[in-house]
């Protein structure tokens, strides 16, 4: 399947500013959404989004389609920037201005119409995640989307720390064979 963002990234590598603008307009809403969940602060999230897109512009020529879709490459660039910021600021959930809906957006009961909009790779990942126990899946997704530590998950879910650690470890052990 054609990856239109890969084509735009290639044009960005050749310093095509119009291609960069189109890439930004089409992908920034999802990437900001990711930053907002990790950083829980709109200004910080937009700062990180901006830093991420500067890196995307500067490193567009290093993107290799053999390693994955362009959107996943960009999401990885932006998420790593957000995680660096999160660690440097140690933002606490209690100090945040945004209350999020947990994992409602990642519900396994997605309507068929919504599923059609997902890439085949994402549908494959969802199939793998569905095989996990609900508690394991919830912990893994909360870690990914919100950057919660084991202790934060333990507090949030009101479960012992050891239980949360075991859910994540065993969940990922079960996930690995499905992903390869």
């Amino acid at each position, binding site marked *: 399947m054609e990856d239109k963002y890969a084509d735009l990234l290639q044009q960005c590598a050749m*310093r095509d500013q119009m291609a960069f*603008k189109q890439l930004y307009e089409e992908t*920034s*809403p999802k990437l900001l*959404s990711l930053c907002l969940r990790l950083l829980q602060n709109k200004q910080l999230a937009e700062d990180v989004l901006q830093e991420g897109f500067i*890196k995307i512009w500067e490193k567009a020529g290093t993107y290799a389609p053999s390693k994955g*879709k362009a959107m996943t490459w960009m999401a990885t660039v932006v998420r790593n920037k957000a995680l660096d910021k999160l660690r440097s600021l140690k933002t606490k959930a209690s100090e945040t201005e945004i209350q999020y809906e947990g994992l409602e957006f990642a519900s396994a009961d997605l309507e068929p119409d919504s599923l059609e909009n997902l890439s085949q790779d*994402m549908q494959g990942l969802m199939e793998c995640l569905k095989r996990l126990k609900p508690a394991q899946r919830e912990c893994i997704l909360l870690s990914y989307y919100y950057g919660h530590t084991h202790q934060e998950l333990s507090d949030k879910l009101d479960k012992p720390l050891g239980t949360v650690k075991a859910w994540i470890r065993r969940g990922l052990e079960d996930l690995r064979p499905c992903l390869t």
Partner: protein
Amino acid sequence: MLDIKRYQNPEVFEQLAIEYVVGALHGRARKRFEVLMATHFYLQATVEAYEHKFAHLVELLPDEKPSDQVWKNLEAHINVNAPSIKEEQRSWWHSLFNIKSYALLASVLILSAVMLFNPMTGSPVAYTAVLSSHTTHTTMAVTRISQADMNITIDMMKQPDIPDNMHLALWCHPKGGGKAVMMGMIAKSGETVIRIDKAEWKNFKNVGLLTVSLEPKDSIAGDQPSGKILLEGQLTSIHET
């Protein structure tokens, strides 16, 4: 003490890599893993593979439109930096007698001579390479990688003949052989500046050779130069006196 053999066991490092990617590796364990990842390609590759698999999760997120200011800032950034990578139109004699390039070349040669007769220890503060034609051995470009401004600067002293459907790519080759890393496209004349991050700066200590290859415009870089190597030069480290 880091037990490297433990991390060479696929059962151990694959689990650590997936935990790292989902954000379930914290504190000292995360830092320890990042230190190892910076020097072991197989850990980086495993992490990158899982990062790409999990990054599809972004598809499930609801859209959040950024404020207009974010694009304005980005636009200002790319416009400010545009001249540094834009090809400059010069006459042939101008490219032959580029004073700035020759001054840079002279400084590189002096620094190399100082390095040769007065070797220094400690961490490098910069690297340089004089890139010569792969066939005629004529000096064609000077490259400087500086920790102070975290840039690779490539100054083309002579404009190579390249077809319209091709462009030039800069590659770093590890000292001990292995996969090259493409650092970015470079202009066929004038100065190109490529930003680098901390991890890339650290990796330069393992780089032995820089090359510039001719790559088709309609393909995206892989793990090795796909086209003809036009220029090459050994990387030399510069240490603080």
